[in-house]
């Protein structure tokens, strides 16, 4: 066991864990932040997407020991914590989720995309979210909601 300090949603956490534990399980099982979902554990689905220094990353592939000191980790709990983020508002407006299990990951990817590209094209959206699978097949609404959020800057 080793000691690590990580910063999640601007809050520092001290964790004691084996070096190979993926951030996904640190978040879920150690810190109790269950909003980030486990889908596959093998980088195939995107359900576990979080931001590492504002970049979308698959937390199931990020071992705790490899997280750079001082890195800023943002999870779904950190998006719109005070007031809903425009992406979340658009998601509600267009009733994007069906079961919702993939949506934490979808939203993390969408937020990162809009931060990088405030007016994305369909192509940009498809490319940025290609790694986020939705078993319920909500892709069409996801795309529309990203456009809606883009036209709805806060």
């Amino acid at each position, binding site marked *: *066991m080793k000691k690590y300090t990580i910063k999640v949603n601007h809050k520092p956490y001290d964790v004691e864990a*084996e070096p*190979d*534990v*993926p951030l996904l*399980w640190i978040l*879920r*099982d*150690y810190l*109790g*932040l*269950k*909003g*980030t*979902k*486990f889908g596959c*554990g093998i980088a195939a689905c995107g359900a576990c997407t979080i931001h590492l220094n504002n970049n979308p990353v698959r937390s199931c592939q990020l071992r705790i020991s490899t997280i750079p000191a001082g890195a800023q980790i943002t*999870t*779904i*709990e950190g*998006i*719109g914590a005070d007031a*809903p983020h425009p992406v*979340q508002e658009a*998601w*509600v407006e267009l*009733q*994007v*989720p*069906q*079961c*919702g*299990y993939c*949506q*934490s990951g979808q*939203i993390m990817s969408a937020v990162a995309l809009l931060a990088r590209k405030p007016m994305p094209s369909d192509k940009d959206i498809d490319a940025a979210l290609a790694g986020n699978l939705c078993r*319920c097949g909500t892709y069409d609404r996801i795309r529309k909601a990203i456009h809606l959020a883009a036209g709805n800057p806060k």
Partner: protein
Amino acid sequence: MSLNDDNFLRTGRRDFIKRASLATLGLAIGIDSFSKIHNITPHNGTVDNFEINPFILIGLDNTITIVNPRNDMGQGTLHSVPAMIAEELEVSLAQIKIIQSDGQSKYGAQTSGNSSSIRRLWLPLRKAGAATKEMLIKAAARQWGVLESECYAREARVFRKGSDTSLTYGELAGAASKLEVPADPVLKHPADFSIIGKDIKRAEIPARTNGKAVYGIDIEVPGMVYASILHSPMIFGKIVTIEDSDTLKIPGVLRVIKCERKMIHRDAESVAVIATDWWAALKGRNALKVQWDNSNLTETLDTEDYFKKLCKGEGGRHQPP
């Protein structure tokens, strides 16, 4: 105890709703046949809710809680099932709180499957809403000394026709809960529906956009441990040896257990690694060395052959692709 949907429906037709008045009886009575097998426990604590039937709770402050007895797996039962009650009860979805049933037998079968949630609950739940509404109307009519036909319900209130007089469901729930449950409440005509079939936003959607929605995998109970299970790579496989010394060295691994499970077509054997957290359990499973005996596998299966076989079977309707 397992209660299937048919059971639920059968009771549903006749005496689905049983009056329960926490105020007068101090009892919560569920579906009739269930209450026979289920001990009825007195309700203790302060009463601020009237459970006129198990699916509808009306608070003195007019908060209305509707219980959804079906799992929502994305098919929308958290919305559609309460909507059937709300429609007949004459409350809008914005006025109600929807909660998930908690496994108590008074809610009947609490699984989802076979596209049955709406089909099977369509009449029972609408009747539950309609009967409750009729009781509330009757309570109001008595209070005002008028005929029930001079009253109507709208938006969680009973109104007296041709006047501004009204009472909230919360104000009426106590008196209503003492009334007989109507056996055959009048259901609304579909043309009068204001919720069913209308495009109304699902109330639980925000929780599915901010990480707050709770899924099965998110549940934690005190002292919980995690397991990861290694199955035979081939059907009918039997365990010959389990080499778990590497597994047991992994920090967090608690135990390795051989599991046997009787199943319909076969007995399945598997090995479970139990650990303090799921990652340790998975690592432990990956470190297992299990030798399988596959001699029970008398024939090999391949999809195409199997399909052909099925098509040849009695009553087979499909042609091989």
